[in-house]
């Protein structure tokens, strides 16, 4: 239970792997999934005498991220060495940025419980990823694979502006969405291309100073982040309530036990001895290049969500769901432009279409290239329902049949005679037949049992093979039942 007098102060540090073809400092492939130690060379193995040469696209992607989050792009930034020993760190230092990063002072606008909160960004900088440690078949050894060594990373550090686990989750989802819109990172937490560490402390509400900060690591999904933060906030709150002090430490989230535990104390304190990287002169960024990059930025998730609410009258919730992924938002808009009513298109997209996408496991990629059904097909379906040509249930049944065919549903409807019957004359006859066949229910209805209408509607629907226009049937039944009361 959170004591009402305390508030949580949360800062998040995200490491995002960039989707470049080659690594940050050498010409090795940055692709995921190769056999161990294949995408390696003397440079990313840290062999004697090698030197780093910076990949231009890494800078371009970093500037894109900085512009999209309203950062100041430093005209001159400096690389630095972060020195420590670990088997997956081949040079015994990581090339990063320290005192003069590429981007500073931006923000993210995040929607939480219907309100927009502005979360500050301290900095975004460029650095290299390490190799991967694996455990050996026997417990005595570990194995190291350097394919990932030298893959480019952006480190994105938020101000400690987040106050709840839900806010943290929303921030991460928005940040990931932005990076996906920019096509610079695929944002996959489970695969490790989007990693998050948190700094959490608590303090009395209204205070501006910061309490003792605890670092939390090893959270491998957005849900894990929210759970870990909730646990940690509760733990710190209870500790303080019991009169204990919170220890400054690093804790790991244990997903099985659903708790944070202190990390095994490191033998040597972290003194990274940062100093400017002598092998890389300062990065000077031409303002003209920055402006050129700015012109290539897509409409970002936040502004797009707001526009969807405004232009299409969608609810904040629907607009949010649709704009979490650029390909989803694009799909929706394509359908609207093809004539579907926005609310309808939104509904179809977020329920039936998304279900098919997930079934075919197409949502794992950064952009869904092959939709099971096209936006045009869905728009056509929606229009058919809107026009009353088919019922919604007919439409739902039709959708999976369109999978991979490219056929216009209108054509299918015509070919199979699926159009719903809205001919008043035909329906009046059907109504009359049903009323004649069910005198008991007619009597019940007239005696005041309204619910029986449903049964009668059902009978008419069945008699028409499901094709009768249900609203019209209902209207005609009521009229017929009422007129005979006299």
């Amino acid at each position: 239970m959170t004591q009402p007098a305390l508030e949580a102060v949360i800062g998040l540090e995200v490491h995002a792997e960039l989707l470049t073809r080659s690594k940050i400092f050498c010409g090795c492939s940055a692709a995921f999934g190769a056999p161990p130690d294949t995408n390696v060379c003397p440079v990313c193995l840290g062999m004697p005498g090698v030197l780093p040469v910076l990949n231009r696209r890494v800078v371009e992607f970093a500037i894109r991220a900085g512009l999209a989050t309203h950062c100041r792009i430093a005209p001159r930034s400096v690389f630095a060495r972060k020195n420590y020993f670990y088997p997956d760190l081949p040079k015994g230092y990581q090339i990063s940025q320290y005192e003069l990063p590429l981007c500073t002072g931006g923000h993210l606008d995040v929607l939480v419980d219907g309100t927009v909160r502005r979360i500050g960004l301290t900095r975004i900088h460029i650095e290299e990823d390490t190799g991967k440690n694996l455990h050996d078949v026997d417990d005595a050894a570990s194995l190291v694979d350097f394919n990932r060594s030298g893959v480019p990373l952006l480190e994105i550090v938020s101000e400690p502006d987040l106050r709840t686990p839900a806010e943290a989750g929303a921030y991460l989802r928005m940040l990931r969405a932005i990076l996906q819109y920019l096509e610079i990172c695929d944002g996959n937490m489970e695969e490790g291309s989007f990693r998050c560490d948190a700094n959490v402390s608590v303090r009395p509400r209204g205070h501006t100073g910061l309490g003792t900060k605890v670092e939390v690591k090893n959270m491998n999904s957005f849900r894990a982040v929210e759970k870990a933060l909730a646990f940690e906030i509760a733990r710190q709150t209870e500790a303080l309530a019991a009169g204990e002090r919170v220890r400054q430490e690093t804790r790991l989230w244990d997903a099985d036990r659903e708790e944070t535990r202190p990390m095994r104390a490191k033998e040597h304190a972290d003194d990274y001895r940062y100093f400017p990287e002598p092998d890389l002169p300062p990065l000077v960024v031409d303002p003209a290049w920055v402006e050129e990059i700015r012109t290539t930025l897509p409409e970002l998730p936040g502004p797009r969500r707001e526009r969807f609410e405004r232009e299409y009258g969608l609810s904040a919730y629907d607009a949010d769901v649709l704009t979490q992924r650029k390909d989803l938002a694009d799909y929706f808009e394509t359908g609207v432009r093809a004539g579907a009513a926005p609310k309808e298109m939104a509904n179809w997209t977020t329920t039936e279409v998304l279900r098919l996408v997930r079934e075919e496991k197409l949502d794992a990629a950064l952009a869904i290239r092959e939709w099971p059904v096209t936006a045009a097909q869905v728009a056509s379906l929606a229009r058919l329902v809107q026009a009353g040509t088919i019922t919604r249930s007919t439409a739902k049944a039709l959708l999976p049949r369109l999978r991979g065919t490219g056929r216009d549903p209108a054509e299918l409807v015509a070919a199979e005679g699926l159009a719903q019957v809205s001919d008043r004359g035909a329906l009046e006859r059907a109504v009359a037949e049903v009323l004649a066949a069910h005198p008991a229910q007619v009597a019940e209805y007239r005696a005041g049992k309204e619910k029986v209408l449903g049964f009668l509607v059902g009978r008419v629907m069945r008699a028409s093979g499901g094709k009768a226009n249900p609203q019209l049937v209902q209207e005609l039944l009521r009229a017929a039942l009422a007129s005979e009361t006299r």
Partner: protein
Amino acid sequence: MAITHDEVRRVAALARLRLEPDLVARLAADLSHILDAFTRLQAVDTSGIPPTAHAEDLALALRPDEVTNPPADEALLAGAPDRRGRCFRVPRIIE
């Protein structure tokens, strides 16, 4: 400028150097002696002087995002002190 044995051990730990006790003593003496001689540096007026972080006035040259290295062959891994398959092998890393 007295560098203590504790300092020497702290620095040795950072540098992953194992030092026998007599080496600790000798290094404490050496480092103290050297830094003593260098103390005069402190007296130089460097207010407003930028540090020379880089040896020349060069802006960083960038390279195009192209895969120019073929998949690595055995030769690069041949010097590994211990391997299993294509992975390098080290004593167990305890998290």
